[in-house]
């Protein structure tokens, strides 16, 4: 046992000690600013404030309220950037073909049975994070990335062939992704398109009723705050991120015989 091993063991044990101390003291560290700046104070006051109906978004999670309501256009453009990056992988690998029947290899039986138990739990946790985005920390993007872990695990453990046999193909995922993006755009236009024929003031990306427009998304479902369009945006963003990143993962593990026709496709374009 040399000096390096001792240093490694000491630093690891210190880390475990620090982690356990932090977790047992508080869930989160008490590093909170004692005084809020005016912008932060206005967000905290208005994000869930039923008495100030013209500025509230009825979302208990302030971050989600900012991301999808007060700064909704930014997030829409972020979604489009993700869309463009996935389309770029499609452009690089254009001309690929999906061949099933190349044989399933996969990993050992132990990892397969563990994955069968874990993967549905991960997906359920991701969906819960996404559709509770207006109540607890999280949101569509977070939930989507959590669910993608399950898809990547299945690809790594069961091989791509298993997904083909279950009816998951890259073209279907792309279709799901485009439908999700369309749903987000339609949700952002919905109140404006309702208001326009009946000559009522309404805005694009509007969530709750404003001073000069009485139209509003549903704020409460039975007794649960729904936060109107934020819930819908989180749901559709979950679909977009999940299908998009699963699509990218499937593109990266395509087999060699599926990529043979890439060169011919590239020559046709040149």
């Amino acid at each position, binding site marked *: 046992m040399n000096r390096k091993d001792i240093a490694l063991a000491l630093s690891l044990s210190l*880390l475990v000690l*620090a982690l356990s101390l*932090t977790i047992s003291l508080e869930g989160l560290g008490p590093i909170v600013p004692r005084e809020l700046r005016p912008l932060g104070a206005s967000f905290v006051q208005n994000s869930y404030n039923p008495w100030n109906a013209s500025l509230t978004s009825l979302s208990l999670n302030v971050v989600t309220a900012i991301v999808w309501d007060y700064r909704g256009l930014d997030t829409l453009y972020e979604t489009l950037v993700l869309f463009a990056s996935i389309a770029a992988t499609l452009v690089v690998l254009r001309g690929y073909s999906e061949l099933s029947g190349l044989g399933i290899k996969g990993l050992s039986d132990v990892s397969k049975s563990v994955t069968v138990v874990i993967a549905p739990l991960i997906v359920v946790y991701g969906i819960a994070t996404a559709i509770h985005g207006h109540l607890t*920390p*999280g949101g569509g993007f977070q939930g989507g990335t*959590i669910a993608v872990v399950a898809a990547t695990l299945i690809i790594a453990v069961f091989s791509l062939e298993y997904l083909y046999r279950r009816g998951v193909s890259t073209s279907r995922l792309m279709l799901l992704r485009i439908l999700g993006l369309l749903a987000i755009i339609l949700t952002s236009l919905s109140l404006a398109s309702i208001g326009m024929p009946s000559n009522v003031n309404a805005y694009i990306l509007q969530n709750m009723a404003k001073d000069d427009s009485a139209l509003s998304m549903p704020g409460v479902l039975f007794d649960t705050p729904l936060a109107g369009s934020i819930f819908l945006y989180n749901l559709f963003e979950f679909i977009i991120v999940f299908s998009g990143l699963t699509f990218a993962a499937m593109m990266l593990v395509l087999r060699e015989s599926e990529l043979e026709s890439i060169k011919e496709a590239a020559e046709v374009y040149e």
Partner: protein
Amino acid sequence: MQIDVLIIPYVVIIYSSLLSVFMTYLVVRERDLLIATILTLTQGVFYSLLYLLLMAPDLVLTYIPVSVGVTPLLLFLLVKKTERFER
């Protein structure tokens, strides 16, 4: 001597940020790409701990699946398709 309990998160922040820098150095120096991927994973764990202590739970929820789940798996698949040792 009375130790102020509130100072522990700050100590953990300093410790994990220093260790993450050290991990980055190890990742750059490592010739075995499989071990380098695992070291990247540990660095991701330190970063998510930093986000948690700096009161950004939304970022933690994105960073843990990306840095601990998706990126190492994709890098493992990449190493499997190419070469394990850097020349």
